[in-house]
C-alpha cells in the first residue's frame, strides 16, 4: 500500500487547464490517494457555499470506476449534447512500477544491500510519478465539471460528490437505465460524418477543418513526446548503473584511483536524480498536456459529431415531411418531428459555438501555463546540474 499526500509535495501540479477552482462556490481537489493492490482510492475534498449541498466542507472516497460512471452518465444525457464533455480520466496505469516491484522481490536475494535500497528508491520514485499523473488527471476532470455552469448542477455530479457510501450499486443501476446508446455508436464513423455533412455555417466549417487537422497532429506529437521522455528515463537509468559499477570498482581499491571513482560515482548518482526529474517534469508538463488535449480535442470532435448527427436527423425529418405531404398522411406528426429536429440542431449549434470558442481560449491558456512551468523547471534542473558538476570538478582538481 502506498499513499502520497499532495500537500507535502512542493511542486504541486495543479491542473492542466486553468481557470478552474476560481469560483469559490464549489472548490474540489484530490489531496490524497491510496493504492490497494489493483484499486486506487481517491479522496475527494469539497468545499462549497452552494445550498444544494448538505455540508460546506467534506471529503469522500471514490474509485476510478466511479469517475467513468459519472462521465458516461453525462455523455448519455441528451441535454448536454451541445457541450464539450470533459474527457474521462484514463485508468491509472501502475504496470511499470508493479513490474519493478516484482523484479525487486525476485532478485532480493541476489542483490547487495545498496543495490536493493537503490532499486527500492527508484521504485518509489516511479510510483510517485504515476500517482501524480493520475491524481492530476482525475482532479482536472472534476474541476472541469465544477466550473461549468451546466455540469455543476448535474444531479449525478452531486451524487458523486456527496453520496457517502459506495457508488458501486448505483453504478450498476445506471448502466441498465441508459443502455449505453451513445457508446454503441461506432466512434470511427464520426470523422466521416463530420466531413461528409454539408456545412452552411462558416464558423463550424472552420472549426471542422481545424479540429480534424489539429487532432491528428496533436496525437502524433503526444506519441513522439512519449518516446522522447522514455529515452530521457533510459539515460537516467544508465547513470544509475554507471554509478553502481564505479562504486564496485572503488570498493576493491585502496589508492587515489578509489577516491576519483567514488567522487565520480557520487556525481553520476546525483545526476541521475536530476535527469529523472527532468524526464518526469517533462512528462508531467509537456507529454501530459499533449495527452490531455488530444482527449479534449476528441471531446470537441464528439460535439461536432453530435451536431452533425442532429443536422442529418433534421435533413431526414425534412425528407420525411415531404414524403408525408406527398402521401397526405401523418403530416402533423412529421411537421412536429421536423420542428423538434430543427430546434435541437439550433440549440446544439448555439451552445456548440460558445463551447468551442471557450475551448480555444482554454487551450491557449493551458499551453502557456504548462510550457512556462516546464521551461522554468528545465532551467532549474540544468542550473542544479551545473553547480553539482562545477563543485565536483573543483574537488577532483584539488585532489
Amino acid at each position, binding site marked *: 500500500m502506498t499513499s502520497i499526500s499532495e500537500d507535502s509535495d512542493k511542486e504541486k501540479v495543479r491542473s492542466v487547464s486553468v481557470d478552474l477552482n476560481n469560483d469559490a462556490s464549489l472548490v474540489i481537489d484530490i489531496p490524497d490517494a491510496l493504492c490497494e493492490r489493483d484499486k486506487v482510492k481517491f479522496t475527494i475534498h469539497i468545499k462549497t457555499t452552494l445550498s444544494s449541498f448538505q455540508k460546506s466542507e467534506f471529503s469522500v472516497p471514490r474509485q476510478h470506476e466511479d469517475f467513468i460512471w459519472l462521465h458516461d452518465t453525462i455523455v448519455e444525457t441528451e441535454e448536454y449534447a451541445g457541450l464539450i464533455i470533459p474527457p474521462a480520466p484514463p485508468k491509472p496505469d501502475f504496470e511499470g512500477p508493479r513490474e519493478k516491484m516484482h523484479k525487486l522481490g525476485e532478485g532480493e536475494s541476489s542483490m547487495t544491500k545498496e543495490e536493493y535500497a537503490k532499486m527500492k528508491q527508484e521504485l518509489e520514485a516511479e510510483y510517485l510519478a504515476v500517482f501524480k499523473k493520475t491524481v492530476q488527471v482525475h482532479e482536472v476532470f472534476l474541476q472541469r465539471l465544477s466550473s461549468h455552469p451546466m455540469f455543476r448542477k448535474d444531479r449525478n455530479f452531486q451524487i458523486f460528490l456527496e453520496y457517502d457510501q459506495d457508488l458501486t450499486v448505483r453504478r450498476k443501476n445506471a448502466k441498465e437505465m441508459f443502455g449505453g446508446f451513445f457508446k454503441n455508436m461506432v466512434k470511427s464513423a464520426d470523422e466521416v460524418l463530420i466531413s461528409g455533412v454539408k456545412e452552411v455555417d462558416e464558423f463550424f466549417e472552420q472549426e471542422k477543418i481545424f479540429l480534424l487537422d489539429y487532432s491528428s497532429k496533436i496525437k*502524433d506529437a503526444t506519441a513522439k513526446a512519449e518516446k*522522447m521522455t522514455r529515452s530521457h528515463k533510459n539515460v537516467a537509468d*544508465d547513470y544509475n548503473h554507471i554509478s553502481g559499477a564505479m562504486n564496485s570498482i572503488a570498493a576493491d581499491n585502496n589508492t587515489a584511483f578509489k577516491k576519483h571513482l567514488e567522487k565520480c560515482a557520487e556525481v553520476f548518482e546525483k545526476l541521475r536524480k536530476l535527469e529523472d526529474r527532468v524526464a518526469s517534469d517533462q512528462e508531467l508538463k509537456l507529454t501530459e498536456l499533449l495527452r490531455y488535449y488530444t482527449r479534449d480535442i476528441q471531446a470537441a470532435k464528439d460535439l461536432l459529431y453530435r451536431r452533425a448527427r442532429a443536422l442529418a436527423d433534421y435533413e431526414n425529418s425534412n425528407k420525411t415531411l415531404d414524403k408525408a405531404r406527398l402521401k397526405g398522411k401523418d403530416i402533423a406528426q412529421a411537421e412536429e418531428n421536423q420542428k423538434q429536429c430543427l430546434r435541437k440542431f439550433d440549440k446544439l449549434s448555439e451552445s456548440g459555438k460558445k463551447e468551442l470558442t471557450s475551448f*480555444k481560449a482554454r487551450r491557449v491558456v493551458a499551453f502557456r501555463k504548462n510550457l512556462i512551468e516546464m521551461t522554468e523547471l528545465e532551467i532549474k534542473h540544468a542550473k542544479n546540474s551545473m553547480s553539482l558538476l562545477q563543485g565536483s570538478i573543483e574537488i577532483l582538481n584539488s585532489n
Partner: protein
Amino acid sequence: MSGSFGRNPPPLPDSEDQEAEFDTRVLDSDEEEEDEEGEDIFTGARSKPITPTSAPDEGDIFSEEGSYIRRDVHHATNGLHSDEELDLFTEATVELTLTSTTSQGRREITGPTASACNTTHVPNSILKPSVVTKTMEELEEEESGDKFELNIAVTNPEKIGDGMNAYMSYKVSTRTTLPMFPNKMFSVRRRFSDFLGLYEKISAKHSLLGCIIPPPPQKSVVGMTKVKVGKEDSSSAEFVEKRRAALERYLQRVVAHPSLLQDPDVREFLERDELPRAVNTQTLSGPGLLKMINRASDAVNKMTIKMNESDNWFESKLQEVENEEQLLRRLHAAVDSLVNHRKELCINTAVFSKSVAMLGSVEENSALSRALSQLAEVEDKMEQLHQQQTFSDFFILAELLADYVRLLGAVRCCFEQRMKVWQRLQEAQSTLQKKREAEAKLLWANKPEKLQQAKDDINEWESKVSQYERDFERVTCTVRKEVLRFEKERARDFKHYIVKYLESLLHTQHRLVKYWEDFLPEVKAIA
C-alpha cells in the same frame, strides 16, 4: 596512462616567418609545409596564452584535439594537402560535430618530480579563468625545470588507394627536446599495420622482462571495409576518428614507458621515412596462426602453473587485477548502454521537434503557434547538444574504459611472463638435479669415460640455473615496479578523463540553460 593537453588554436602566423625559421629537415622534404603548420601549433601552444574566447563556433568541431585538423581546414598556408584529404576532413568534421578528445600527449621524461600531465579542456563557451591560469602556471613551472618533453600526435587520416587494397595512412608527428633525437620536430606517415608491427616487435623483446606492454587498438574488419569501399558517411568517419584517437593514445602510452622509449624499434617507428610492411600482423598469415596456437597453449599452461611465493604480494595483486578487469568490463558495458540510449534520445528529440513544428503550423492562435515553432527549434538545438554529449560519452569515457580493460589484460600477461620465467627456472633446476643423479650413478657404476661428460653437463646446467635465478629476480623486481607505475598512471588518467567528461556535461547543461532561458520570454508572450 597518457597525458593530454588541450589547447585552443593560436592565431594564424605569418607563413614567411615560419619558413625562414626552418633549418634542415631530415625527413619528408615534401612535407615541409605540413611541418610548418606543425610548428605553428607547437609554438602556439607553448608561448601564447590561452585566451578564453578563442574558441569560436567554428572551433566547435575538434577545437581541442582538432588542432591539426582545424589547421588543415583553415590554415591559409596549407596548400599541400590534397583535396581528397581536405574533403575527408570536412566530412569528418561536419559529421562529427564536437568534442573534446585529447590532442596530444605530454610526457615528462626525466625527473623524479615529474608532475602530472595537464588536464585542461576549455569548453567552447564556458570559461573558468582560474582553471586557465592554473594551466599556464603549470606550463611555466615545467618549462623552467630541466625537463625533457616528448609530444606525440596522430592526425590527418588519409585514404590511400582504392577498393579493397585501400588503407588509411596517418600522420605521426613528434615534437621533443630529448637529446637522443637529432631533430626536435618531425613527422612520418604510418598505417595501421605499422602500429601492430611495432607492438609485435616490442612485445617480443620486452614482455619476457616483465614489462607491461601497452596493447594496440583492435582490428576491425567491418569498420575498415566500410572505409575501403568508400562509404563516406558518418559511421565510417566515426570509425576513422575512433581509430585515430586510439592510435594516438597507444603511442603516447608507449613513449611514456621509460624503457620502451629507448627501444630502437620505437625510435625507428617515429623517425624513419618508410617502414617495411609488417605482414606478420595479418590474422590469417603463418605467423598469425602461430600466434593463435601459442595463445591457446599459454592458456593451458596458465592453469597448470602453481608457484610457491615467498611474498603474497604477487598472488593478491594478480587477483586484484583479474577482479578489476571484470568490474571494468561491467562499467564499460554500462557506459556503452548510455551511449546508445543517448543516441536514441537524439533521434527521438529530432522527431519530436518536427512533430511540434507541425502542430505549431496548424495552431490558430498566432502567439501560441509562434511559441510552438520556437519550442521545435529549442528541441532541435537540444538534439545537437545530445549528439555532442554522445561523442563525449564515447570518446572520453567509453574509450578510456575499453583501453583499461585491455591494459589490465596486458598486466595479466606480464604476471604470466613472470610465471613462465619461474617455470623455466624450475625446469632447469630439475634438469640439474637429474644430471647430478646421473653423475652419482656413473660414479657408483664406475664408468670414468662418461664421467667427464656428466661433469660438463652439470656445470652447464648449474650456470643455467644461476642465470635463470637472476632472470627471475630481475623479472620479479621489474613486474613490481611496472605495476606500481601502472597504478600511478591509471589514477592520473582516470582523474584527467573524469574531469574532462564532467566538463563536457557541464558544457551541455550550460547550453541547456541558455536555450531554455531564451525560450521563456516567447512562451510568456502568448496571450
